[in-house]
């Protein structure tokens, strides 16, 4: 199962997901005006995909794996602890990043022209760092799921890729307005996405020697917690902020439906 081909495939998926921050960078430079309705629906969609796959696919899988390893009593407890541990981890990371630079707490992506160049540039670079830091666990998440379940991973990759697009916009917009250089803006938006395959690489080097069904179970539960927290703490509020409430909800439900249909089809 853990052939070199699989590992390469998982890396490739993670890289695609991470580097779509670059797509956001490109969009922000060439789009005359950001289409906020589209962004709202896309953020909602991304949340729907992640919430659905976490609850319906990954948590039951985690519980099964951990029950098999530790019995239903301790197995269930470990699944719960890992789930909330994942939430705590991403919550702490989010808390450590200052608010105005935190891409997950958007609302300040539309940069006014009054802002001075230096401040903007700093904001852009800090945003890039923040995006990079939080992309780390996302990279591990994508990589581990791709390794274990290549089919389900495609949906996760799509969800993470979609939500990386606005993050790329968040990085590129202030840098472009500050420096006037499209190259620099694109470079930084790509760099922030690089953290994703880097996280995967770290995950592979550190976790690989210990890989077992039980560890997969723990990771699945933790990743579910991370994805659900990101969806409710960041994606949904941002989607609401960007546009009409019902566009965001429509996006969430569409995301869930896409996930549901693809899971039924590949069952």
């Amino acid at each position, binding site marked *: 199962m853990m052939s070199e081909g699989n590992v390469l495939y998982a890396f490739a998926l993670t890289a695609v997901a991470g580097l779509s921050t670059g797509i956001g960078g490109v969009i922000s430079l060439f789009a005359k005006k950001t289409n906020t309705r589209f962004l709202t629906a896309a953020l909602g969609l991304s949340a729907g995909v992640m919430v659905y796959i976490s609850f319906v696919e990954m948590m039951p899988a985690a519980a099964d794996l951990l029950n098999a390893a530790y019995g239903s009593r301790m197995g269930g407890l470990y699944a719960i602890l890992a*789930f909330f541990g994942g939430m705590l981890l991403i*919550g702490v990371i989010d808390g450590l990043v200052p608010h105005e630079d935190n891409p997950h707490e958007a609302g300040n992506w539309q940069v006014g022209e009054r802002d001075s160049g230096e401040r903007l540039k700093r904001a852009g670079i800090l945003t890039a760092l923040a995006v990079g830091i939080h992309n780390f666990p996302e990279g591990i998440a994508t990589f581990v799921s791709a390794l274990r379940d290549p089919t389900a991973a495609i949906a996760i990759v799509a969800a993470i890729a979609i939500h990386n697009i606005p993050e790329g916009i968040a990085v590129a917009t202030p840098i472009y307005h500050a420096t006037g250089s499209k190259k620099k803006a694109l470079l930084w938006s790509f760099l922030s996405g690089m953290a994703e395959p880097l996280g995967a690489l770290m995950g592979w080097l550190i976790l690989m020697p210990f890989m077992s069904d039980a560890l997969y179970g723990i990771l699945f539960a933790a990743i579910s917690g991370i994805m659900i927290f990101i969806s409710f703490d960041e994606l*949904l509020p941002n989607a*609401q902020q960007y546009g009409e*409430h019902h566009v965001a909800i429509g996006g*969430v439900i569409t995301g869930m439906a896409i996930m549901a249909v693809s899971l039924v089809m590949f069952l």
Partner: protein
Amino acid sequence: MTGYFFSIERVGFALLLTLLAGLATGIGALIALYSRVKDMRFLSVSMGFSAGVMIFVSMFELFGSAQRLLVVPFGSKTGVFVAVAAFFGGIFLSALVDKLIPGRINPHELAAIQPGENAKTKRLGMVTVAAIVLHNFPEGMATFVSCAQPLHVALPVVAAVALHNIPEGIAISMPIFEASKNRRTALGYALLSGLGEPLGALLLYFVIRPYISGTVLGVLFAVVGGIMVYISLDELLPGAEVYGEHHLAIYGLVGGMAVIALSLWAFQ
């Protein structure tokens, strides 16, 4: 499980719990009309909590139960498909009810009802009263059907529904008090809205009673899961953000998920 659920004592108990959850709108009205509490941030936490319980129980437990029940008659592929269809059917049903009831008088569109702003509510016609009662039918059905689950699942759901009815009671009673200047009228409408829940439960019971089976229960679990997910996303989470800081809502959400997860684990 199905035989037990549809024993008459069990149905009576489920209706009683649904009634209690529904009447929590009265608590909201009392807070709004008689208390001096100005700081409404506790509502952020409680609405987030309520959403956490509902989302976790719907997607993990109810949807799982639905799949297990539906795989028996339909086989693994079609069974899961029926569960998925029923889940999205529940979402569609709630969305439809919300759509059909105009925003101005729909207590689920919290932002639309701000105290003081609405002079038109003076003319509370039969349409408004009917809308206030009707909009709670899906919620009542959801509470009732959740009571077919073991108590350690049913009770957190009942608590979540009751908690989320508190802001709803506030949302209904405030504009009515502004218009009528009568506390009793405002309280009365809030309670009326809460009564929509046991009424919806009763209606559902009489409709499905002749067709009771594991299959029907499976479909109902999935439909109800969809209803609760829609309520959480469309009403509770945005409402929680309106009443207070974003992070309070998230703490509530995570807390709600933790309570239901531990309850599922402890009594498995």
